[in-house]
């Protein structure tokens, strides 16, 4: 049972992030929500690769230990983190520029493109 708690956390964080993206009016809070969604995806990958009692997956430990955690999801997560950093930086820069142009952070007022 306790092994499933991380998955529960993934779900909770995912839906919290989604809630922020869906219902927050402030763009910075939406950006935070997107970061939360990213964090939940990364956490999911890490949790999937975890093996109980596993040791670190290092080449030189081969044969020494019985079980290692899976290295692939960790590599995947690192890549996803890098991508997440790029998107967050760009998103925040866009919000800065939007604030300069529109003078507001309220997403409901930034709607010149519609219809």
């Amino acid at each position, binding site marked *: 049972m306790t092994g499933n708690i991380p998955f529960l956390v993934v779900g909770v964080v995912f839906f919290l992030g*989604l809630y922020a993206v*869906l219902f*927050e009016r402030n763009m910075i809070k939406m950006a935070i929500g997107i970061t939360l969604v990213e964090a939940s995806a990364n956490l999911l990958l890490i949790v999937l690769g975890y093996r109980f009692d596993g040791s670190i997956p290092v080449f030189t430990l081969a044969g020494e230990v019985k079980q290692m955690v899976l290295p692939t999801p960790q590599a995947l997560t690192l890549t996803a983190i890098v991508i997440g950093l790029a998107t967050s930086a760009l998103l925040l820069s866009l919000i800065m520029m939007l604030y300069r142009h529109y003078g507001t952070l309220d997403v409901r007022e930034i709607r010149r493109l519609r219809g």
Partner: protein
Amino acid sequence: MWSKVYTGFGFWDVYTWIIFFALAAGLVLWLRSMGRSDYKKGTEQDEIFYGSNEVPEDGEDIQVPASSAYWGFVEALQPYYEKLLQIHTGIANDYVGYLVVTTGILAVLVLI
């Protein structure tokens, strides 16, 4: 390379169409050549007919703007377009909302 495309129900042959267009173009050019070329140049015979009014200098004054095109069509479908424009709010929250709602609906359909 020069054969027809069979669709399983009929076929499509581009060269028949090109021949048809060539014939039609020839017909049109022939009809045009039948027109009279002995009108008097420089008189009112080659002026634009604008409901016997003065033709405005700038073309802007006589052009029909694009928003007037298909006025009747849009007017007839007014309720439909009102709904459609209501959907396109332009708010970023709603964009994601439609994504999430569609995911939810499809998830329910697939998982049942």
